């Protein structure tokens, strides 16, 4: 097992790593990070290190080859000065070479990911297709290295960027390995880009007290979200979502909201820890959340939720697919068939569905996740189709630009996001039935019919949750006008101390950790 970010072991590991990091000469800092990253990842066994190493070495090598082809081409053009036609033909040939190299890397590494993560899913579907009476199809259950989806995506982003000539490839294998395995982010992101992370990782970082303190504050805030909020609602949410027969009516809504809050507190808390730990090393990582519940429509929500993943999909799948020759051909065909209106939008919609299919399967090797992804994509397409209508509506009722309507939009978007999550946890095909059940039979009075008591939440749990959620909301509101930590840092010492100490004591006392609580993994570790 690789240690959890919310374990005593991780805190000790982090403390030791931080001391070593600032004790060694500055030019060895990145080597120290590489060493502790290896240690961190090897904690689960050598096999955990094997896969990322294959990915790192193969990508490093192929990217270098691409770089070499590029340099050779440049020299050729400079020295031979070919005319325009020759140059064009030459460049096409070079591009082909580079593409072959990139494709090799992508097939190899996504191949590993697909085999490790999806073999059982594919075998299971095969089993259904063949008919159960054909006898059991074996399941393989590979050892799935933690974080494989994250580091594979990050590394493939690098390879594509090098192919596109965005930046030169990294020559030093060990530096590249650090980019792949940097321990705070390897297990659950954020998915970084090489040109951004490079200067953070390999610059010398003298100890900066303010950065270090800010980092620790953020880690503490992450612990609060994870241990006080997410893990406290988790058992109740699990009970509701696992038993749709028992928990119907209003509980469909309770489960939906609970699941969303848990997911947010868990994942964004995890990111706070990751980014905070990293900040203690003087290394800035990209943000993964930007107050998503302030979004006014679903596509804006997705630009503020798990941003590095959606950004990856946008850049490396959505844009290339929608501008691809295939999409152009399809849309031309539609134009010829007289469907003038869709021609413009067809490429977007095709690419959109592909992205959301992949988003779904990225989250889990199950049909529920695929449906969930596609449902998100479809909702966005419908809302795109309705854009004209919205615009007309707003022109007719200009008062809808006010904050009340804005609040309505935010609530609507939050509910929509939550509602779609039902595809993730309800059995295949029952989502609409559950939604119908909620709308037809849901009554607030059902909250007092005894089923609530079965959830195992005590009065103390409610008080803690209520305070915790309020605090999370308050911090979000404060964030809208700038960094909360900077605001806090501007206050007198006593105020700073009181705020941080109170938060610390709350985590210490009201956190769900240690004996008596089931240590629960971060939800987003499983990818």
């Amino acid at each position, binding site marked *: 097992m690789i240690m959890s970010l919310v374990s005593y072991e991780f805190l000790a590991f982090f403390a030791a790593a931080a001391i070593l990091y600032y004790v060694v000469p500055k030019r060895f800092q990145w080597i120290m990070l590489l060493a502790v990253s290896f240690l961190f990842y090897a904690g689960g066994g050598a096999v955990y290190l094997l896969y990322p190493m294959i990915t790192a070495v193969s990508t490093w090598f192929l990217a270098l080859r691409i770089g070499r082809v590029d340099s050779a081409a440049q020299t050729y053009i400079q020295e031979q000065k070919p005319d325009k036609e020759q140059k064009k033909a030459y460049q096409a040939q070079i591009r082909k070479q580079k593409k072959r190299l990139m494709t090799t890397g992508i097939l190899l590494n996504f191949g590993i990911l697909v085999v490790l993560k999806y073999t059982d899913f594919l075998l299971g579907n095969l089993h259904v297709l063949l008919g159960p009476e054909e006898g059991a199809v074996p399941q393989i259950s590979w050892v799935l290295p933690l974080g494989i989806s994250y580091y594979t995506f990050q590394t493939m982003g690098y390879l594509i960027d090098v192919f596109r000539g*965005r930046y030169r490839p990294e020559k030093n294998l060990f530096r590249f390995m650090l980019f792949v395995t940097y321990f705070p982010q390897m297990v659950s992101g954020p998915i970084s880009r090489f040109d951004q992370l490079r200067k953070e990782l390999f610059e010398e970082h003298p100890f900066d007290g303010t950065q270090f303190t800010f980092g620790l504050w953020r880690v503490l805030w992450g612990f609060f979200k994870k241990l006080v909020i997410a893990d406290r609602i988790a058992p109740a949410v699990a009970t509701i979502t696992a038993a749709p027969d028992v928990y119907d009516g209003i509980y469909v809504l309770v489960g939906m909201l609970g699941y969303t809050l848990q997911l947010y507190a868990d994942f964004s808390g995890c990111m706070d820890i990751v980014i905070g730990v990293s900040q203690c090393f003087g290394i800035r990582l990209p943000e993964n959340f930007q107050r998503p519940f302030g979004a006014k429509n679903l596509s804006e929500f997705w630009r503020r939720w798990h941003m590095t993943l959606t950004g990856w999909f946008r850049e490396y799948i959505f*844009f290339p697919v*929608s*501008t*691809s020759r295939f999409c152009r051909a399809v849309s031309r065909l539609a134009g010829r068939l007289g469907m003038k209106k869709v021609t413009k*939008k067809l490429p977007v919609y095709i*690419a959109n569905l592909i992205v959301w299919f992949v988003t779904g399967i990225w989250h889990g090797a199950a049909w529920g996740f695929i449906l969930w992804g596609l449902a998100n994509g479809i909702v966005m397409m419908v809302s795109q189709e309705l854009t004209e209508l919205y*615009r007309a509506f707003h022109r007719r009722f200009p008062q809808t630009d006010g904050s009340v309507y804005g609040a309505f939009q935010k609530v609507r978007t939050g509910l929509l996001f939550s509602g779609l999550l039902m595809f993730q946890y309800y059995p295949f095909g029952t989502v609409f039935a559950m939604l119908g059940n909620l709308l037809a039979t849901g009554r607030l009075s059902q909250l007092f019919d005894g089923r609530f008591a079965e959830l195992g939440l005590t009065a103390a749990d409610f008080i803690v949750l209520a305070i915790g959620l309020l605090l999370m909301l308050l911090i979000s509101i404060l964030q809208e006008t700038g960094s909360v930590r900077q605001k806090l840092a501007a206050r007198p010492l006593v105020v700073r101390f009181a705020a941080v100490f109170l938060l610390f004591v709350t985590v210490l006392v009201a956190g769900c950790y240690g004996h008596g609580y089931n240590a629960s993994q971060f939800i987003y570790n499983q990818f």
Partner: protein
Amino acid sequence: MDELLEILNDINPDADYETNEHLVDDEILTSFELVMLVTQIRDVLDVSIPSEAIIPENFNSVKAMMRLIGRLKEDE
């Protein structure tokens, strides 16, 4: 320039394209709109923009778009 403005107004009429220099950052042009824009530019202006050029810097203002289009035309 006028053709480009026409395309833009067709995609999202609610923006002041002549002055706004944060079209992508302000989410006036989201990824859906960007792709439609790129498709239209290709069909109407006959300039094909490769997907790796779809980055905020190239689409934040009409000026930037014109620069991009000019550069791509030159490369042809």
